[in-house]
Structure formats: structure tokens, C-alpha cells
């Protein structure tokens, strides 16, 4: 159904987000099929995260224009936080991504983080899978508040962290733990001059302190960009492409996808069935080994299959 058919995408995204009993299983089946059919290489999946006000959306807009200029299509998921009290959410980011407004080569879906405060919704991973079947690139934009970096990192191949000039000193970056996960650092609003250069310096200094093991052969670069005057945008796109090539040539893409599959299956089962439920499969370690065994199965089919096992186990009378 999703033979790169843009028109089918909105409805597919609606369906995978349908939590009604019965619908949920169908959605997982659909997603399992999509993921199973997807070649590992597939379209690059890129995450864009950073504090509110860092200019992620304007940066994304500039990236969209660059990629569209070379004829590539993009599917974008933007995740905004949900209100803890009411469950409602304001998804207002789209206004900054103007280049997508009437271009069929760009698809934009905003999502609420729902119960995953500061993180990305289950639906986001599903959304990425759907978009990967239809577009040349998939982008995920999230507000960086705490755990979302690690959360997004399990959905994408390349994670770009967007920092605001003057956003903080080295200590704050370290405390926030943001030096550990992203593959590319960007200091946006380079047009502000010295303060941007200083922030880039802080980040570089932090990365030089050995927070990251260099064994993967990729040293996260720190780039200066300006969505306003276009500075550094093409360099950023080139760097994203370079990271992707690095993942492929070093074989890390496969390892990374496998790791994120494990994390996703484990977290989803934990959330749905609790620790008592996952204990039925031997806890995190047990689940991890089951995921590794079923190397060819998609994350979604594993959630479905292992979930059924847990349900069966829970239905058995206590001894």
C-alpha cells in the first residue's frame, strides 16, 4: 500500500495511531510489514533536537529547502510536549517550516508527546517507519528537555543537537548530559557573532574531554549555522550525509538499528505490561536476548508477538 505513495501516508499515520482494541494489533501488523519490507539502508533518519528557542524549526526549514533543491523528498515528524494536566497539546511549530506549505515533496505531521513527557510518543517511531516507506529522508524534530535526546536517538540514525548561542557554559552542557548522545552539534544563529562562536567553543571543549569513546570512528563535529542568512546550511547537510556514509561503511548502521530495536521493544513492553509483565519473559535481559534471536523480525512484530506471550503468561492461574 505504501509504494512511495504520498497520498496514502496521512491515512496510514492515522491508523497506526489508533489505540482502540483490535485497531492496535492491526497497526502493529501493518508496521511490522512495512519495517520488514524496508531495506536496512533505506532513507536516512535524522533527529533534530535542542532547547526551545534554539531555532530548530527555522533550521529545519533551511534544510528542507536545500534538500528540495536537489530534488529529494522529505517526511517530517515534529513532536511537541503534551500538557501533563489536561493531556492537550499545542502543535505550533509548523509555521516556521514554510517551505513545506504547498510542496508535495514535503510531508509534515506534528505529534504530541502524550504520556511520554519530554520524550517522543510511541506513535513517533511508528510515524518514522511509515514515512521511511514513502520519502527520501525522514526528519524527527523534538524539543530537547532531558530524556528526549536519548529517546530520539533510538529512532534515528543521525542525531543533530541544536544549541542556542549563549545557551550555557560547559558545565551546564555536561550536567544536561547532552554531550553524550548526539552525532552532530550545531550552534544556530551564528549571525549573532561572538556569542555563537563562544558557545561552539564550549561544546568543542566539552567533546574533547573524552565524554565519547572515539572507537566508533566518528568525532561529533560542532557546526555554526544561521537559518537567517544561510550560513553553514549546506555544510550541515553535507555533514549529515557524511555521517550516514560513515554508518554504512563502518557497519554501525546495523548495530545501531539493532540496539534501538532492543530498546524500543523493551520499553514498549515495560510500559504496556509493567515490570511484572516483562518479568514473565525474564526481564530486560530476557527480552534483549529474544530480540537478538529474532534478528529478522521487525520491532513492531516483536512487540506484538512478545506482548501476546506476556498476556498468555499473565492469564495462567498463579501456582
Amino acid at each position, binding site marked *: 500500500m505504501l509504494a512511495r505513495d504520498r497520498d496514502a*501516508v*496521512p*491515512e496510514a*499515520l*492515522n491508523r497506526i*495511531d*489508533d*489505540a*482502540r482494541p483490535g*485497531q492496535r494489533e492491526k497497526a502493529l501488523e501493518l508496521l511490522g510489514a512495512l519495517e520488514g519490507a524496508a531495506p536496512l539502508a533505506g532513507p536516512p533518519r535524522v533527529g533534530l533536537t535542542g532547547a*526551545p*528557542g534554539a531555532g530548530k524549526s527555522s533550521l529545519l526549514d533551511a534544510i528542507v529547502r536545500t534538500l528540495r533543491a536537489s530534488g529529494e523528498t522529505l517526511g517530517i515528524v515534529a513532536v*511537541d510536549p*503534551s*500538557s501533563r*494536566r*489536561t*493531556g*492537550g*497539546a*499545542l*502543535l*505550533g*511549530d*509548523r*509555521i*516556521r517550516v*514554510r517551505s513545506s*506549505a*504547498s510542496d508535495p515533496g514535503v*510531508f*509534515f*505531521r*506534528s505529534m*504530541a508527546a*502524550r504520556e511520554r513527557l519530554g520524550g517522543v510518543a510511541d*506513535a513517533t517511531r511508528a510515524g518514522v517507519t511509515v514515512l521511511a516507506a514513502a520519502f527520501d529522508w525522514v526528519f524527527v524534530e523534538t524539543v530537547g528537555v532531558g530524556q528526549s535526546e536519548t529517546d530520539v536517538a533510538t529512532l534515528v540514525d543521525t542525531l543533530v543537537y541544536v544549541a542556542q548561542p549563549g545557551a550555557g557554559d560547559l558545565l551546564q552542557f555536561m550536567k544536561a548530559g547532552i554531550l553524550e548522545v548526539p552525532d552532530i552539534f550545531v550552534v544556530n544563529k551564528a549571525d549573532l557573532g561572538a556569542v555563537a562562536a563562544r558557545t561552539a567553543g564550549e561544546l568543542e571543549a566539552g567533546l574533547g574531554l573524552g565524554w565519547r569513546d572515539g572507537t566508533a570512528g566518528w568525532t561529533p563535529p560542532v557546526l555554526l549555522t544561521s537559518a*537567517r542568512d544561510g550560513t553553514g546550511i549546506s555544510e550541515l547537510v553535507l555533514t549529515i550525509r557524511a555521517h550516514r556514509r560513515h554508518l554504512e561503511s563502518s557497519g554501525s548502521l546495523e548495530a545501531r538499528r539493532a540496539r534501538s530495536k532492543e530498546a524500543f521493544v523493551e520499553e514498549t513492553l515495560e510500559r504496556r505490561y509493567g515490570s511484572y509483565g516483562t518479568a514473565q519473559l525474564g526481564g530486560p535481559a530476557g527480552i534483549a536476548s529474544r530480540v537478538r534471536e529474532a534478528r529478522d523480525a521487525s520491532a513492531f512484530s516483536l512487540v506484538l508477538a512478545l506482548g501476546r506471550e506476556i498476556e498468555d503468561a499473565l492469564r495462567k492461574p498463579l501456582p
Partner: protein
Amino acid sequence: MSDEVAGRESKQDRPWVFRTYSGHTSAKASNELYRRNLTKGQTGLSVAFDLPTQTGYDSDHPLARGEVGKVGVPISHLEDMCALFEGIPLERMNTSMTINATAAWLLALYVAAAEHQGADARLLQGTTQNDIVKEYLSRGTYVFPPEPSLRLISDMVAYTVDAIPRWNPINVCSYHLQEAGATPVQEIAYAMATAIAVLDAVRARRDVPKEKIPSVVSRISFFLNAGIRFVEEMCKCCAMAELWDEITRERYGVEDPKARLFRYGVQVNSLGLTEAQPENNVIRIVLEALGVTLSKRARCRALQLPAWNEALGLPRPFDQQWSLRIQQILAYETDLLEYADLFDGSPVVAAKVAELKESARAELDKVLGMGGAIAAVENAYMKQRLVEAHTARVRAIEAGKLPIVGVNVYQETEPSPLLAGSQSILTVDESAEREQIERLRAFRAKRNAKDVEVALRNLRDAAANRTNVMPASIGAAHAGVTTGEWADVLRALFGEYRAPTGVTGVRVAAGEASSAATDRARAQVRSVSAQLGRPLKILVGKPGLDGHSNGAEQIAVKARDVGMEVVYEGIRLTPAEIVQSARDEGVHVIGLSILSGSHGVLVIDVMERLRKAGLGHVPVVVGGIIPEGDAERLRAAGVRRVYTPKDFDLARIMEEIAELVAEPPAAA
């Protein structure tokens, strides 16, 4: 001293300038209206431009569709401008133009039109509104990003200070901030921050010598709002006068106290005018006018009063006349102008003024600490504070804590004889747009293409080389350049801007969010979401050029507060964009907000496109100033609900929207 004891001045104070914000349909129709108003005793003009003119589009641009001549007069070129002032000697007129993003262009056309009349441009008097900051925050007719916009403003300041010395190149507007919900303190602080941004930019120019700064400062005027809390509003005006005096002395070293005078015009509040029992608005308008005229020390220099029925639609000439008469009675019949300041020595007023000043200073310092007004636009700080303040106001009305007669108290009423008959508002003839386009095309056909080309090149060069754009713009006006062409040159150079919506960061005080109605709406949304299998998702859209986003923002915030997932994409969307968003975002319902009177064309366009896209089942609701006859037509076109200003209970609206989504789709 004896004079002081009597409190009576030896000679009467001169009345302020009487204006009426007006213009519609065409330059010719507006000219007739202006001339009639002047014969009725209006002493100045206040030009309302239509949205295409305000946002830099010619009348035949696709985005102009449905908007030509609606909220003001369409001015596409010099002939339009000449027709607008035919028979009105500009040398002797005092003209206020509500124009911002394209202010440099409209001033250029005004100068060129005056030159056509044989007038000396140096004698022209008037005001270009030209406050781009409040456009980003409230009114929405911005075009370019903040930095080049500020540069255009400072070009105009630098130009007029020599070439048109009696012109007010900018009218810093706190008016629209109050319309967007600002508290008096926010109104004062953000207006001062805006004035500082402009003056700092002018001071940094090499072509404005230091000794010119006092003259520059003396040409900065303000445009205030005055709400129904008229005692506080009077104190607000006093506080602003004192602050302005201090700021211009401390920050800009202006020694001459006359150059530090706080000069301001006023349009009294429209936010508080009600659709319910609209006759009461006359009383509101009178009291608000008192607020800005009572204190001699802080009396406005020019006043324009809205019409009693503007929450219902476009006012007729009769309605505008009624408002003019209020001013005339106040100035000529009462003894108001015979006395010195009535409040000198009043400890109550002094304390209130001091309190407002102190809080405003603190807020101003906060904004300056962020880097000033422009920075506080870009980081959405000011916008968020305004949306928050407005949200608090809307909630207070919903909860009955802020009584509004006829709306949330004393709703029982006799039928109003004033509303009898179908002609109780003005409607712009649908042929206006077609005729304006015909005139525009005829004009284009007869001008000298070579002159236009040269003029546009000069404009581009001036803009790119940071030379003052005013001389090139006046040249372009004479050469026959059109509004759209002028703006296109600058759009290509400066880019276009989207301002932050301010809704995402709105903080909601706990406790404020709950009311019985809100809880009911929340339960309804929860149950509908469960039926749908995912949370109810709504698209809030503003089609067309209208930038008054306050209503849409409040709907968006409320929808979130009752648990909906809200896609809000800001202003100025085309129907095609709205339909694409609705499909791509997978929304269950669409809410459209329009205040420009162009709902007929735009909403029906959205409805047709939805059907073509296979989304005919997605319910659409519309909110805005929509006369009942139009509402019926919209419903006939498939719109499920039409909301107007009298529907103040947002929780109830949310409940209805949730019910609509749950209903099976109506048979087509």
C-alpha cells in the same frame, strides 16, 4: 495663583484633532467619505488601508482575493493615492495613515500625490503608524523580518526629520497590545521598548548627526488604547508621559523639555465593545474618551472613536458620525477644556501613576535585558505574555469575575430598535474588487515600462546598499510603480518573516483552568477521543491576509486546555495550505478564524477544496465578525457552526466542537 484657585484657565485649551478611522471599497468612495466627514467637523483624516495594501500586494494578487477594499481602501499606485485625496489640500491636512510594513511606500505615494497637487512636501503634516513590533505581536500585517523592518523605519525617521519636518514618521502603538490583551503595565513597557528600539537604530546611523537626535525624539509619537477602566487608563497616560520624559533625557540626552513631551493619539478600546446589546457601546466609548481627555497634563493630541456597532460588521457613515459627535460634544459643549489639570495634587492619582511606572520600569528592564524589543519578539517573550494576559481576561469573563453588561451579566434585553432592518451595517459591494483590478490593469498598461524598470532598479540598489529607500521610493511612486512591485523588490532582498505565535509557551495558572464548563468540555473530549482511538486533533487556521490572531490564539489555548491536540499554524494561510495541513496532519475538525470580512470568499474556497481532497466529512467551524446573513450562507455551504463575538464561553464552544466530531457525518 487666583487662576489656580478657581482652577479655571484664562484661555481655553485647544481641542484635540478629531479623526475617524475610515476607508473602504475604493479610493473614490473613500474620498467621498473623507470629504463628507470633514464637512461634519472632523479636523483630521485617518486612513484605513485594505489588507493587500498593508501587506504589499497589488489588488490582483492571488492572496488579495476577497480582501480588496474590505477593511480599508485599496491603494495600488499613484493614481489611487491622488484619487483618495482629490479636492483635499494636503498642505493643510493632518493625515494619519495606519500603515506599517509598507509605510515607506505609502508615505512615498502620499508625498508624490501632494507634489501632484503642487504642495510643498516640507509642509505636510501627519503620521505613518510604522510600528512593526506590534504587528509581530498583535496585528499581523508584517512582511519582512525584524531587522530590515527596523531599518525601513529608521530610513523614514532619518528622511522625514529633514525633508518633512512636521511628519511623525512612527506612531508607537500600544493600542494593539491592549487589543491583544495587554495589561496597562505591559502596554506601557512594550511601547517604551519599541520606541527605544527605533531610537537606538536611528542613533546608530551615520547619516543622523548627534545634534539631530532631539528633533528625532520630538517627532516620535504614540498611539494608545483606552479601555473601560478609565481612571486607570488616565493614570496610564500620565505614567507614560513621565516615563517618556525620563527615558528621553536619560538615554538620549534630550535637554529641551518640549522635545521630551509625550505626544499621543488614541483610538479607544474595541476589545471591550460587545455584540450583545450593542447600544451600550456608546456609553463605553464616551467613558473611554473621558479617560484620555480628562487630565490636561496627559490629554491626547488626536482621538478617534470606534463605532458602536463594529462588533457586528463594518460601520455605516451614520455610525461614524455618531462617534464624531461624541468628541464634539465633549470638546465644545462641556467645560472640560476650560480648566487646568483636574488631578494635580491628587494623592490617589499620584499613587496610581507611581505604581504603574514602577511596574512598567521593571518589565521594560526585563525586555531590555533580553536585548530589547526585537529580541523579545524573536524569542516570543512579549507575545507569550500577551497571550497569557488575554487568556486570563477571557477566563475571567467566562467565570463571571469580570462583569460585562449584556454579555455575562444582565443579558435580558428588549429587542433593540437600532438593529431593525437589514441595512444595520455596511457591506462592501462585491464589484469593488473587480473594478479596482480593472483600474490597476489599465494603469499598468499606460505607464512607461522603461521608467518603472529604472525606478525599481534604483529601489533595489538603495535597499541593497543601505542607502535611504525614501528618495528611491518617491521616485518609484512618480514612475508608476505599484504597491506589489515595490514590496516584491524588498521581499526578494529581505525575505519574509513568520512571527512566533506565542501559544506554545503559555503558562496557565493552576486553578484558573478549571470551571464546571471546562470540566464538562474536558470529559466530552476524553470520551470522543476514546471513540476515535486517538486524541481529538483540531486544526486552527487563519485564512487570508487578516493578521488579528487573538481569537485564534485563544481558541488554540482553550482547545489544548480541554485536552485536544491542536495544530495552530499562525496567520496568513491560503485555503490550499489549510486543506493540505488538514489532510497531512490527520485532524478531526477544522476551526477557521476571520475578522476581515472576507469570510464569504475564503471559507467557501476552503470548503470546496476539502470536498475535492476527499475531506468533506471533516467538520468545519468558523469564528469571526460575521453578520447573520453571511452566517446563513456559510452554513448552507457546509460550515457546521458559526461563532461571533457574543459567543464568549469558550468552554461551551469546545464542548460543541467535540460533539460535532462525534456526530456521524451529515449526508452531503
